[in-house]
């Protein structure tokens, strides 16, 4: 089965699964996300084990976290999940222009989230909550930072894909790439929902 058998004709309804290569890619990506789940599961466990380890004189989770700011970040990221769904829907309609537009919106929202996160981290640093302050701070920055790094990677990746699709158009090679990037973006958003609950909400309550 050749990679470009459909390029000249009409794209099938689900171009990401039209070729064996595409199906392999989508399956592999689901499996990869399974591994990522274990990765974040372990990070969450580490955080839960160490979140109580605030040393004398350092700000506690309750004192640090600013819920309205985090809620705004959550809202932005969840919206970007929705816009990435619109992009995939546009892809299934074979509407390249609309797909690119929605991807651009997604990337912009991702950037907005990152700006808020950087602002938040700088704010914490000023409050005396650095990476090396305590076991709590190390595990906090590592968990949230790993997620942040995933968002950065996603933003860069989707931007590069936008460029590729702009040049090459939508075909059975580019479609699976867009599709798995969408999966990735959803995963990153789901992880954030857990971070919002486990880190921020529980930090405010506990």
């Amino acid at each position: 089965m050749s990679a470009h058998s459909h390029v000249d004709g009409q794209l099938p309804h689900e171009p990401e699964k039209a070729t064996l290569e595409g199906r392999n890619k989508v399956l592999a990506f689901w499996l990869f996300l399974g591994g990522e789940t274990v990765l974040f599961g372990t990070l969450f466990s580490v955080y839960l084990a160490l979140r109580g380890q605030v040393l004398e004189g350092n700000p506690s989770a309750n004192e640090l976290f600013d819920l309205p700011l985090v809620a705004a970040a959550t809202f932005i990221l969840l919206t970007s999940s929705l816009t990435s769904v619109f992009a995939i829907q546009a892809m299934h309609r074979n509407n390249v222009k609309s797909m690119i537009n929605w991807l651009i919106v997604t990337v912009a929202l991702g950037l907005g989230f990152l700006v808020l996160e950087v602002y938040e981290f700088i704010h914490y640093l000023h409050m005396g909550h650095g990476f090396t302050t305590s076991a709590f701070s190390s595990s906090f920055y590592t968990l949230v930072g790993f997620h942040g790094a995933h968002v950065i990677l996603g933003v860069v990746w989707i931007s590069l894909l936008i460029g590729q699709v702009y040049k090459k158009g939508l075909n059975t090679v580019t479609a699976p790439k867009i599709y798995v990037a969408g999966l990735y973006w959803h995963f990153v958003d789901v992880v954030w929902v857990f971070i919002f609950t486990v880190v921020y909400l529980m930090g405010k309550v506990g």
Partner: protein
Amino acid sequence: MAHGHTVKRYTGIMDWITTVDHKKIGILYLIAGGFFFLIGGLEAILIRIQLWQPMNDFLSADMYNQVLTMHGTTMIFLAAMPILFALMNAIVPLQIGARDVAFPFLNSLGFWTFLFGGLLLNISWFAGGAPNAGWTSYVPLASPVYSDTHGVDFYVIGLQISGIGTLIGGINFLVTIINMRAPGMSFMRMPMFTWSIFVTSALILFAFPALTVGLAALMFDRLFSANFFNPEMGGNAVLWEHIFWIFGHPEVYILILPAFGIISEVIATFSRKRLFGYSSMVFATVLIGFLGFMVWAHHMFTTGLGPVANALFSIATMLIAVPTGIKIFNWIFTMWGGSITFNSANLYAIGFVPTFVMGGVTGVMLAAAPADYQYHDTYFVVAHFHYVIVGGLVLGIFAGLHYWWPKMFGKMLNETLGKITFWTFYIGFHLTFFVQHFLGLMGMPRRIYQYLDGLGFNQMNLISTIGALLMGIGSILFVVNIIVTSRSKEKLGADPWGDGRTLEWTIPSPPPEYNFLQTPLVRGFDALWKEKMDGNKTVTPAEPVGPIHMPSPSILPFFMSVGLFIGGFGFMYHQYIIGGVGLLITFTCMILRSLYDDHGYHIEVEELEKGVKA
């Protein structure tokens, strides 16, 4: 190549660096893994020389700790796993009737990251000292306070890089086995080796990310003064033990399950009998993989987790004996009523069964937590896991290498030498490790660089050292055998054993780069054997001869791994510019890979027919 294609085909060293052919990558894994096996073996010999007599001063205390750490780390991550990857690369696609793995490019990337991670780890010998906190690297001993050389830095970064390769390999083989099977090759018709690789790959996928997090946390502690495991700043040392063993116990099954698969193939072939209880074998393999995730705390019975946890993990661990027992009896009953040939491959496989039983029963003994308070961290444990890993895994690997060598290289390993090697290695193995059970029970802790005279340890340690030397001789004989074999001029057919049962024995030895001229149609379990019994010479093709699409070779995986290697060095020595350059190389290669589509090339029918005639 005569045919007018624009695709470059490399030769010589460039061919090996750029190859994406799973068979060549398998050979690369075998060479690299074999190299590290010899290094790890040398380290084992050093350990045994140090312990041959009481209060020996052959190695200093700290050097001994470096050697024992590197012996464990090298053998598990850089020798055993890569050699298994060698066999799974060489054989699994052939067994399921595929032309290649799902992701040839990633396959190559997996190999090169493993190799450069392993090289990085071993460079520590020349850079101020190897890691010295044991392969488990328990903190605080492995923390910057108590281990102030760069040794453990090499451990965390080297393993992190080679771990990427392993994870990639795991995903690749899962997808390959799920999506690339030939028509008719249903899951319940897959050969047992493929099944074991399938489960092992799943274990890799779900176990390695835990190690990734553990290593990252330890790296942050060591390089950037984080406090995960620093008790002074609220860190938790027991947390490392949990993370390490949540990965570490599945790792044991990642190692042993493929050996189970190999033994199942070899015993069935050389008994000329179908594997007894195939479906229960599959079930047992999956169950062992599943249970493997819920028993990690049996490595921590003395950590002080409390009686409830210890009781639960005791029982869960004992349960693993049941599926393992099923396998043992199935192997014996595969031979029952069969026609057993005693060639070297089967000697290893038959030798495996009783040895593994002994490793298994000591495992059940260790599962009884109160008794483990006595066994834990003694030579009893050392004996147990060597019975499982050497007596199980290494014998399995040797069996697999003898069995599939003709398929991989087109030549039979020398039988006489093979048998001599087997007996030397096998007797050496039991001499080395059987007495260690008693050493442990008599009060000898593990990981000690010397023992006092008059404690009653002397004779058994001497016996153990003699055994280790025999194992060393056995390993050298195997290398000699490879050299002798490589000089022979024999040409082998598709099924050199004459008793082949599975698809890999339907194609030439060694196979052409496209494996199957025509994708086979699988009509039952043991596809080739079924056709033989039905009076056919070989399997029916599922397609006419046509142009075969092949992936292009690529140098990018090599450079991506070089980038990680440089980056690891940079961060270790706090040279962030070098670190950044390394990562930049890797990311640039990734972007290049994404931007330039690899359409591969086609081998046309005329060329295929030429190949068949030659």
